[in-house]
């Protein structure tokens, strides 16, 4: 049974087909790459999976449950976490608060309990604090916990986005260009980090990435999109030598 399965999902924006008939399957604890030139529809695919857009046609299954058309927050609840290509942290809030907020969805206490601070609420709050701190330690951000998140350097902001997504307790983590804006050194560290995350948190990872070294180095399977169409899929070595992929990336005279 696949953890995530998209069955021919298609997204059209007023006549323009951004993604057509995308079918991907991801098993638990797999690391999958989604690559393709700019404008190939990769982020649109993410948005369909996470409920930001409802696919024009086709269905998304999570653990065999049809989650097509559910709201984004409901899909997060099921166990799909994500980061954003153009970094969407809660800018004015602290690093720690960014992570704490991502625990809110699993909170059992209601609003009044949080105001009068019942013992159940205090217990939950303490647990969330400890869990968030340990996530920050895992991503090497513990020293920056009280910093305003927008003050972080670019690479650290990307790490914080990952920490935040992990705080929602996902089984599938969607990373949208995690290496963008990172220097070569940081990119190499990131590869190690992605594997560590998979092992420690038992998550499957689907990542969009342009940095080929990272993709080829860490992904177990890769899907390639071009103009919304899936032109290739397979293990890194197959993809590297696929003439269609080379054509899409380099163009043909």
């Amino acid at each position, binding site marked *: 049974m696949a953890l995530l399965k998209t069955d021919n999902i298609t997204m059209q924006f007023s006549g323009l087909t951004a993604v057509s008939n995308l079918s991907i399957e991801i098993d638990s604890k797999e690391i999958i790459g989604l690559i393709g030139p700019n404008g190939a529809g990769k982020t649109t695919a993410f948005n369909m999976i996470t409920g930001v857009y409802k696919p024009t046609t086709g269905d998304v299954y999570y653990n065999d449950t049809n989650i097509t058309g559910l709201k984004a927050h409901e899909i997060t609840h099921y166990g799909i976490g994500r980061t954003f290509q153009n970094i969407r942290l*809660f800018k*004015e809030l602290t690093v720690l608060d960014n992570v704490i*907020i991502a625990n809110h969805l699993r909170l059992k206490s209601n609003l009044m309990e949080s105001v009068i601070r019942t013992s159940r609420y205090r217990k939950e*709050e303490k647990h969330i604090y400890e869990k968030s701190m340990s996530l920050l330690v895992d991503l090497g951000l513990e020293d920056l916990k009280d910093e305003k998140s927008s003050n972080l350097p670019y690479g650290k902001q990307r790490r914080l986005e990952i920490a935040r997504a992990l705080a929602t307790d996902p089984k599938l983590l969607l990373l949208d260009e995690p290496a963008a804006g990172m220097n070569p050194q940081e990119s190499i560290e990131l590869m190690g980090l992605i594997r560590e995350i998979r092992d420690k948190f038992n998550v499957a990872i689907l990542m969009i990435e342009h940095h080929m070294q990272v993709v080829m180095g860490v992904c177990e399977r890769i899907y390639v999109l071009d103009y919304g169409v899936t032109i290739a899929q397979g293990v890194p070595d197959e993809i590297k030598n696929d003439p269609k992929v080379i054509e899409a990336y380099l163009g043909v005279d």
Partner: protein
Amino acid sequence: MRDRKKVLTLIFLLVTIIAVAVLNFTLDSYKLKIITLCGIYIILGLSMNLINGFTGLFSLGHAGFMAVGAYVSALLTMSPALKDTVFYAAPINPFIKMIQAPFPVALLIGGIITAIIAFLIGAPVLRLNDDYLAIATLGFSEIIRVILTNTQTLTNGSLGLKGITRYTNMWWSWGIAIVTIFFMIWLVKGMYGKAFKAIREDEIAAEAMGINLFKHKIMSFVIGAFFAGIGGGLLGHLIGTIDPNMFRFVLTFNILLIVVLGGIGSITGTVIAATAVTILMEVLRFIESPISLGAIHIPGIPGMRMVIFSLMLMGVILFYPKGLMGRNEFNWDYFINKKFLKSKKKSV
């Protein structure tokens, strides 16, 4: 350290209570009324700041919420006999006539009904963003006013309600203000307050983190409306008469001024600004009324007070958008450290 802060907070509360008691005995009734009004505006300012400042929803419906709270609670405290004399133009609905409740219960029911109405308004409107939300909430506030004017047998129409017993005193207004302050502090510090702030910062990210936008927006909106309704009820029982014209957009404007001046998203700022603006509103009354100094007669300038207030609002937003406090709050640590540093310097 934690205990020390608790002790300090308790001392602070005690001082406030003593201050209220002392002021209650020493001030004349006019000044007492102003101080009482300050407490009410603190409640109103905080309720708007929760919606607009902490959750980032630009709502302009406060006057409408206050109107609902004021009417409901006033109709509950007025005696059947009094209602009969007030409703001389058209007889009052018999059910509304008979129903009666003591002041605190009336206030609470006023707040709850306001919250219910806010829920009904919010359900469709909170799906809208920014400017549309602002206009739609302003629209609802106006609709509430138009309805109050036209439902003669329920609200006495444009004649309004008169002879409401003036139950609101220093104790009630400041008591409820302090409860509201602590409620807001704990709410904003807690997980739900953090979720509200996340929505303010970035709706799409908040939703991707599993926060149900609609549910949390409506929670913030309804809680804000509840306190606005209580504030409206207190106001009605302070002034003694209410009519639909009292609840025009300008009332929302005054509260908005408090929130902006104090800092959008700061509880401390709202408390300070509410007090300052309320006092200023009274002090500036003299500009609008004629003054006679012996032989010299200075005519009043109607409209001048609001000119000053609009200039204040624009001045803050144009030149000092953070307001008094920005998003900062008063906290004992800062206070202790500063004091500590000062005494250290002296000893050197």
